[in-house]
């Protein structure tokens, strides 16, 4: 079916343009760091190891200081990237003593040679913005906590856990206030779940806009979360008959609020204080975050301070003005909570360059908000033929899986795609299918919930680009 092309409104166009610029800067920086070909890193470690310039620059600053700076002892070049500490590199680490144990103060940092960072989407205001996980560099299934994507509506609050309180009230028998110590005394659950922003991929409806998988899919991350089921807290306060919704509220400057159906709250919602073995990160809601497995990221209220049990949704700004999906007919879908099944190939992906024909281990992530991933298929011919991928982990409900697919590239043009099927039998659709259903007043209409199959074109010279196929 032929459709008119999607038109961006002014604001979306501006944001997309700005993002393209920001991504170009990031790519230029990576190129300067000698990582013009992401595929070489890791795949061909010897080449990277002998790339002296890359090493020197990786040890230098993010600004990409000239190669000579380190040798001349330029202080600016000694700055390490975020999350790392700079140390001089001895010619032979077996001939000098290393650092004494404990010199890091007891909390480790990543290697100074690891350069990946989250990238902020250049909204006009840095207090209401989002930053993308560098999926092209993530290993395995869990996202490093410091690289977990974030979306904040008025900055990241600083909260003293000793003073933080959770109020649970409304249609309950005994309204209660809980301290963090109270919350941690309850029996806990430990569960791995992805969180995905409903706006993940919003630049990609109309045409392939961003170059890298960080830009197209980076509002997705996975952590192991520890917390208390809402059901446990519900029994402490006693739910009253007729209670059908719960309003969750954050303690940030946006005082973020969302209404959540009681059914979900009593199915698998939990109040998380742990993330990947330690306290939840400030950007992720320290000290307490609502986990709603498989639901839009926005509903996972961070800095959770209040749960008001009710018999109606409150129609807050984030569930009316935002996070609603305007269809082609001018009507909007509301309370579109679930993130549908989706997958993406993270290697090879946009802006990488394959060094030549031969074997490649295609790898990526697949997930579904409706349950476990059942299977993942990979195509190297733009979806004409599909082959089953290997699932590298045990599939868990509402959690990503890492998949891989052995590919012998013949050096001819190829279009790589992946397709997820979840345990309900839902199959990840194509972009054309989604647009046929939702209409095409696109980006400022149905900007959210783009879960279409992603295509990466591999050209004869090995370069990989984001395409709509």
């Amino acid at each position, binding site marked *: 079916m032929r459709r008119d092309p999607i038109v961006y409104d002014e604001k979306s166009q501006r944001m997309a343009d700005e993002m393209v610029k920001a991504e170009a800067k990031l790519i230029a920086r990576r190129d300067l760091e000698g990582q013009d070909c992401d595929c070489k890193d890791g795949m061909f470690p010897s080449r990277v190891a002998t790339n002296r310039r890359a090493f020197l620059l990786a040890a230098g600053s993010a600004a990409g200081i000239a190669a000579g700076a380190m040798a001349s002892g330029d202080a600016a070049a000694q700055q390490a990237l975020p999350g790392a500490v700079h140390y001089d590199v001895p010619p032979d680490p077996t001939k000098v003593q290393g650092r004494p144990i404990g010199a890091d103060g007891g909390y480790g940092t990543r290697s100074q040679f690891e350069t990946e960072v989250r990238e902020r989407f250049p909204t006009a205001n840095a207090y209401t913005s989002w930053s993308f996980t560098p999926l092209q560099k993530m290993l395995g299934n869990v996202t490093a906590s410091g690289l977990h994507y974030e979306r904040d509506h008025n900055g990241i609050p600083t909260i003293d856990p000793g003073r933080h309180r959770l109020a649970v009230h409304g249609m309950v028998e005994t309204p209660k*206030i809980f301290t963090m110590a109270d919350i941690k005394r309850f029996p806990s659950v430990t569960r791995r779940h992805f969180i995905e922003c409903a706006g993940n991929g919003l630049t990609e409806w109309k045409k392939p806009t961003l170059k890298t998988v960080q830009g197209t899919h980076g509002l997705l991350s996975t952590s192991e979360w520890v917390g208390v089921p809402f059901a446990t807290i519900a029994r402490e306060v006693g739910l009253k008959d007729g209670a059908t919704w719960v309003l969750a509220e954050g303690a940030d400057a946006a005082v973020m609020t969302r209404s959540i159906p009681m059914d979900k709250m009593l199915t698998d919602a939990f109040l998380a204080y742990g993330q990947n073995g330690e306290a939840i990160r400030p950007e992720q809601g320290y000290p307490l975050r609502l986990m709603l497995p498989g639901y839009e990221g926005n509903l996972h209220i961070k800095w959770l301070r209040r749960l008001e049990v009710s018999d109606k949704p409150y129609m807050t700004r984030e569930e009316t*003005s935002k996070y609603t999906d305007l269809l082609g007919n001018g009507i909007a879908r509301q309370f579109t909570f679930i993130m549908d099944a989706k997958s993406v190939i993270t290697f090879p992906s946009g802006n990488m360059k394959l060094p030549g024909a031969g074997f490649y281990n295609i790898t990526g992530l697949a997930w579904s908000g409706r349950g476990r991933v059942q299977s993942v298929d990979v195509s190297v011919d733009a979806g004409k033929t599909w082959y089953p991928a290997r699932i590298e982990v045990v599939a868990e409900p509402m959690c990503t899986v890492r998949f891989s697919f052995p590919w012998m590239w013949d050096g001819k043009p190829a279009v790589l795609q992946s397709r997820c099927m979840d345990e309900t039998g839902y199959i990840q659709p194509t972009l054309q299918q989604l647009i046929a259903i939702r209409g095409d007043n696109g980006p400022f209409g149905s900007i959210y919930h783009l879960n279409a199959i992603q295509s990466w074109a591999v050209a004869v010279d090995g370069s990989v680009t984001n395409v709509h196929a």
Partner: protein
Amino acid sequence: MSTRDLIAGTAALCLAAACALPAHAQVQTHYGFGTAAAPADLAKYFAIAPDGSGLPPGSGTAAEGAKVYAENCSACHGSQLQGNPAKGIGGDKLIGGRGTLASANPVKTVESYWPYSTTLFDYVKRAMPFSSPGSLTDDQVYSVVAYVLSQAHIIKPAETMNARTLPRVKMPNRNGFIPDPRPELALYR
């Protein structure tokens, strides 16, 4: 019988009878953690529903709201409520866009898109002005809400907004929303 034998014997008996050692807690479903909240503990919280529940006492008019707006909002949302996309600001356009939702270039504003007037009160009271959220009095919020609604030609300039009148304001896009129909059945053809 030695003491050791006695302990071993008791342990075996316990195992056989599946009796719990006193140091273990029995399985519980209620724990009693947390403290009962007094009304005063909850006084600072609010959430305003479409039926107006949660609206505080007080009132305001567009005339007063124009002043509140000029002082507290205009820099970021524009003197004509047209929005301000400048770097470091990025305040949304608040009015206009009626009739555009089904077009190729939909413009979503309070006027064209928001289904409930109560949302505007709730949101401004909790999250605006962006740089000093929660700093307005309830009268100021009623006033600035009246101003925005009147600039949007949703209420008349002289109408007073309070806990009784605000929930009765009918927003132009009140019927513009449907519940989530997913999974989309067309994907199963």
